[in-house]
């Protein structure tokens, strides 16, 4: 992972000092709430239903054991002993006190963590693949680019007061685990016909009130040009994005209203004036950032060592966990392990302080001290020796993060919803919990295969419901909680927005209806290995609608 140097440390320390001063001026009344709000948002501090919420940045989803221990400390010392991992690879704490925040920020800074720009109308966390650096299908490690762009966009004097928030995602593998097509800028590292590695640049993706998939405005951009091109896009957006209506202020609206071609022309015109200037990245600069990334000193190991294969043969449950949660690694003898934060009955993506400490220790022991956070709200140990898998599994089971449901029906992505969030219309967590109970049978879950349920408590879509195979959107009707259901969305390289199934369903019935949708899938699928998404693609939503609404 990236090693901070004194530039990085100094910046974070100065930010802590600045924030301490801003909080003091707010508490004394020198700053009104109206003046303070954008300042606290730029440091990830929200006001929620019950309390302030702090969203701490986990840059491109990479954490060290020491950092995970600090998160446990923050949970205990400043919060209620747990945290929530988000769909943008960050972590949220729901009960933080404003007056204690400067101290919490100082504690975080001691392990090079911060909350800069996790909210506000500025550049948010640059997200990437939770398997970055270890995925076999990866062209190269996208985190280097995420770090270069992260630095460039941190406390950027020109782009800290954009029309609205701005999210960038980077993928470098054939399979998109980042959902780049629903980002404001999506970048795809790939090889062109001449064998050169560069970026496909996509703009204007986003969910929420008006969901859009991003449009490609530059099929191939050289690495040298990435910062100047991003700068040009941001400058066009900063100047021409709408500021009259917050629901029309994202770049996706600008791209849609101008048209992708006209938008691209504006960007190219601006880019022309800056592409050979100070932002052109020469190889030395890139190499310097890349050199600050430390990779494990992998041992020379064989694939499928006997400790591992014999255990699989002897223990069916271990084998099922391996098949579900363990993925191939680019280095022989190693594996990528996904840790499910979706046990039956639990709020998706939450971890207790105790779990965080245990995970820190296990990562130190089994994963070279490194942990990743996925946008699916699960964690990853990216560097596990296969021969360690049996011992690791026992340890993970003991702390409740080894449910073999990754990617299955009970691996639900849900926003915090009305239980926490002041923007929500309906609750999402209890719906997710109930669904994990309905689908607790792992044989059934395995039989259903890959099935992504996404739940959002309001139209802001933090649960990414538009791109769920089954998407649930909480709405309010006459003071009651209702849920709109969409089918057939997808967030990967075959990204699609889901189609509405039918009239919204009340809270008391939503779990029943989801069960009916799943039953309809079992009836309609052509073969056992035709996954839900493909069945919906093949037959459309009508057959589901007939079956589901006939029963109600």
């Amino acid at each position, binding site marked *: 992972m990236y090693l901070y140097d004194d530039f990085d440390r100094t910046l974070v320390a*100065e930010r802590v000092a600045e924030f301490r001063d801003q909080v003091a001026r707010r508490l004394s009344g020198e700053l009104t709430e109206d003046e303070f709000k954008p300042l606290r948002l730029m440091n990830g501090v929200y006001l929620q239903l019950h309390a302030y919420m702090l969203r701490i940045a986990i840059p491109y989803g990479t954490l060290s054991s020491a950092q995970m221990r600090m998160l446990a400390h923050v949970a205990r010392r400043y919060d209620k002993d747990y945290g929530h991992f988000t769909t943008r690879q960050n972590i949220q704490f729901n009960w933080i006190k404003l007056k204690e925040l400067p101290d919490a920020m100082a504690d975080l800074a001691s392990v090079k963590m911060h909350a800069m720009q996790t909210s506000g109308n500025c550049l948010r966390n640059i997200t990437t693949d939770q398997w970055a650096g270890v995925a076999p299908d990866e062209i190269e490690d996208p985190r*280097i680019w995420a770090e270069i762009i992260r630095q460039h966009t941190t*406390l950027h*004097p020109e*782009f800290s*007061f954009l029309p609205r928030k701005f999210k960038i995602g980077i993928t470098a593998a054939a399979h998109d685990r980042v959902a780049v097509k629903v980002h404001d800028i999506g970048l795809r590292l790939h090889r062109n016909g001449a064998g050169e590695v560069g970026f496909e640049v996509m703009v204007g993706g986003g969910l929420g009130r008006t969901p859009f998939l991003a449009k490609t405005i530059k099929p191939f951009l050289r690495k040298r040009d990435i910062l100047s091109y991003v700068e040009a896009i941001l400058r066009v957006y900063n100047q021409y994005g709408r500021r009259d209506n917050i629901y029309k202020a994202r770049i996706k609206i600008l791209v849609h209203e101008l048209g992708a071609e006209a938008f691209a022309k504006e960007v190219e015109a601006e880019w022309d004036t800056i592409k050979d200037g100070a932002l052109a990245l020469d190889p030395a600069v890139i190499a310097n950032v890349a*050199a600050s990334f430390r990779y494990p000193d992998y041992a020379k190991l064989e694939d499928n060592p006997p400790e591992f294969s014999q255990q699989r043969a002897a223990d069916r449950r271990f084998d099922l966990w391996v098949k579900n949660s363990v993925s191939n690694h680019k280095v022989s003898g190693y594996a990528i392990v996904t840790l499910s934060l979706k046990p039956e009955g639990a709020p998706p993506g939450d971890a207790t302080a105790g779990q965080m400490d245990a995970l820190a220790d296990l990562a130190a022991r089994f994963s070279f001290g490194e942990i990743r956070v996925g946008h699916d709200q699960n964690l990853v140990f990216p560097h596990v020796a296969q021969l360690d898998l049996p011992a690791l599994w026992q340890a993970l089971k003991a702390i409740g993060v080894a449910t073999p449901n990754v990617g299955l029906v009970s691996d639900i992505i849900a926003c915090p919803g009305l239980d926490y969030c002041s923007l929500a219309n309906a609750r999402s967590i209890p719906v997710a919990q109930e669904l994990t109970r309905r689908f607790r049978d792992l044989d059934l879950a395995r039989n259903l295969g890959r099935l992504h349920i996404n739940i959002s408590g309001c139209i802001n879509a933090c649960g990414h419901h538009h791109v769920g195979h089954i998407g649930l959107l909480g709405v309010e009707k006459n003071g009651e909680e209702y849920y709109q259901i969409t089918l057939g969305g997808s967030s990967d390289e075959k990204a699609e927005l889901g189609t509405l199934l039918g009239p919204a369903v009340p809270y008391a019935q939503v779990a029943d209806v989801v069960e009916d949708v799943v039953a309809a899938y079992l009836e309609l699928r052509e073969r056992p290995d035709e996954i839900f998404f493909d069945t919906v693609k093949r037959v459309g939503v009508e057959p589901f609608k007939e079956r589901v609404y006939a029963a109600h």
Partner: protein
Amino acid sequence: MRLIKAGRIVDDRFVRVLDDAPIPEGVSAIIPASRLLADADEISRRDGLTGVLWPNNRRVAELASHLPRLALIALVFPSFRDGRAYSQARQLREHYGFRGELRATGDILRDQFLFLVRAGFDAFEVKKDADAAVFAEAVSRYSVFYQPAGDGRPSALRGRLARPNAVSAQGFTATVR
């Protein structure tokens, strides 16, 4: 309202000319954008320094041909949340090479002073006296900057290369796996 220039509170030598008012001779004057564009030749002959008040929703490209005759450009922040003038400032400094006074007007918070300086502003109309008093402190909050901007300070990316143990492109082999 306090005017800050060169880090200190100073008297404003420029008068603000309102839309239809006559432009005074022999004084420094800030003229509305539409007037400047309409009467450019006449204004270029006036006696005294000329500045323009440029709205944040017009391209600065329209101002380009007038730059040699302008001593000052005042840009506008209608709300401190509206960041359009940062882009205008950078374009004026970095693309058009404007060297005169670049003044930030409207709604600006002390927490934005450093951003404004970095974007290329060198004069600030500040509403709160308390903010004016802390200008020097506010702009020294940070000693490290990740990105190059309109103030010419070096960015961290480049600063690292100047160090003795910086990695050269030739010396580096390990990353791409």
